[in-house]
């Protein structure tokens, strides 16, 4: 599907994410916690990768590093052709604004903004585009089946609807890579599968790459590939 508001020039052949020997060590007092240990991962331009692993294995840490929220202790991170390993916090802020989409494990919506405004805020707080952004928000809400709920506050939406708004928010900036951290954990199986299906359709139709973190093995068939993680180590 072509989107009139994007200037998407990412070549699908170019990997959307390259992690090379990435280490993340948390300093906890005297002891070090190795959250990510020499992780190497490449995600193709339009690939959906499921990241599966037990609690505390480093899934969120990996997403945070790939999304420029966290800087790696060691290693190289390239997203959409942009190397961000040595970015300053300011550069990372701009990078997050432009290049990645997030659906977080817990808080995803601003409670005092309507569904539509939760999408628009991405544009408002970045480089304002105005009308094209409003068009894009309306189009996304429609695709996500939320047109009728556009004026509702998050508190007036069901869990599944909130998750769909979060997906719309993550797609607002036309990212090179979207990171979904357990997007279905708060939903029952049926709703979870619906959301996964939606993620799959949205990503594939736009040719956007995604990492979908999940505990749930039943969800992995929506992905092109599964990466397993245990104690910070990746097994493809």
């Amino acid at each position, binding site marked *: 599907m072509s989107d009139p508001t994007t200037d998407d020039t990412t070549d699908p052949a170019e990997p959307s994410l390259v992690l090379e020997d990435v280490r993340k060590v948390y300093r906890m007092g005297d002891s070090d916690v190795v959250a990510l240990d020499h992780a190497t991962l490449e995600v193709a331009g339009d690939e959906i990768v499921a990241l599966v692993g037990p609690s505390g294995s480093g899934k*969120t840490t990996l*997403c*945070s590093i790939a999304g420029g*929220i*966290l800087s790696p202790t060691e290693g190289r991170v390239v997203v959409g052709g942009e190397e961000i390993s040595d970015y300053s916090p*300011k550069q990372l*802020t*701009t*990078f*997050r*604004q*432009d290049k990645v989409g*997030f659906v*977080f*494990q*817990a*808080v*995803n*919506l*601003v*409670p*005092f*903004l309507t569904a539509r*405004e939760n999408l*628009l*805020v*991405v544009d*408002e*707080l*970045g480089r304002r585009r105005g009308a094209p952004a409003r068009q894009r928000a309306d189009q996304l809400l429609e695709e996500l089946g939320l047109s009728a709920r556009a004026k509702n*506050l*998050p508190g007036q939406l069901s869990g599944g609807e*909130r998750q769909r708004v979060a997906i719309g*928010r993550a797609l607002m*900036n036309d990212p090179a890579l979207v990171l979904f*951290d357990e997007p279905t954990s*708060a939903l029952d199986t049926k709703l979870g599968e619906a959301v996964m299906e939606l993620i799959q359709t949205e990503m594939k139709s736009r040719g956007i790459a995604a990492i979908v973190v999940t505990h749930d093995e039943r969800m992995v068939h929506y992905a092109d590939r599964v990466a397993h993680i245990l104690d910070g180590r990746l097994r493809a």
Partner: protein
Amino acid sequence: MFLALREMRRTKARFGLVVAAVALLVFLIFIQLTLQNGLLTAFVGAIRNQSAPVLVYSVDGRRNLQGSVITPPLEAAITAVPEVGRAGRIGEGTFTATVDGDLADVALVGYEAEGLGSPTALTAGRFPERDGEVVANEADADLGLGLGDTVALEPGGLELTVVGQAEDINLQVTPTLFTTYDTYVAAVRSVNPDARDPLPNAIALTPAEGVTPDQLSAAVNAADPEADALPRAAAADETPGVAQVRQSFQVIFLLYALVVPLVTGLFFLIITFQKANALTLLRAVGAPARRLVAALLVQVVIVMAAGIALGTALYAPLSVQRVGSIPLRFETRAVVVWTVVLMLLGVLSSLFSARRVLRIDPVEATTGAGVQV
């Protein structure tokens, strides 16, 4: 703006409450400022708004017109000072008078010449030309001291007719009449025919050419240890009681200057904590911290401006009333000054919240420690 205004629109009640709180405080500040100024004007307006640049009391008088007595030798010493331009006597006394059929206290101020203790400016009528003519305080017109009204001093029944009006010329919160020195002497005699001519209470001076009021005061004070010369504004400010009134009000204003930023500062700190999750989320999806701080400041300015506007709107109708015999007035200058001060205090008070916003680490959005929205 987007974020700031949307939030205010969605949480009208809480922002409404803080605006109401600011408005109430602003209202109280303005009313008390007006009361203070009204009180001081009723107290020493006659001194502020008389025409002599320098007043000389006797030291024993403790800068109180009624308590000061100028003896002939002192008067001679004062008028002999070379820096003196012109000099004139001022006499002051409180009398009982029949005003509009009732007995009331009035103060009478007698001056020898215009420019030497007469009211600085008239708002209506003319200066006294004949015996028995007086200028009254404009605001006392409805007490029976309007243009053309006549009052009789008791006992004796000496009649005084109001021929002119001036603004803010009362003394000691008593309706005050300015008149010629001769009429003043006649008044003292009319109530007490056995009395000798009264001694003047003060000497009004203008400086000689090239001399400032300050220099003249210093020269007079140096000439005679009994003389206590003060430039006009100082004479008003140093009247016993004025400083005490000012001080008491200053304590009150200082308290307000602490309470207002405390209220706004705490309010914004609380809402910043309450929406920490949303702010963290916005940082995580690429909102620069300064944009979030800007949204905070926009809200602060809106809250302060709305509070001040509402407070002023409440204050405006009350500011033109009277409290007892003290007429109040809309204090434009005070409103402007306090608006600026409160704006600054409001913004300063929100700096704690701003610091909190700047310290948000976007990584907190990923941990899921927050409340599910």
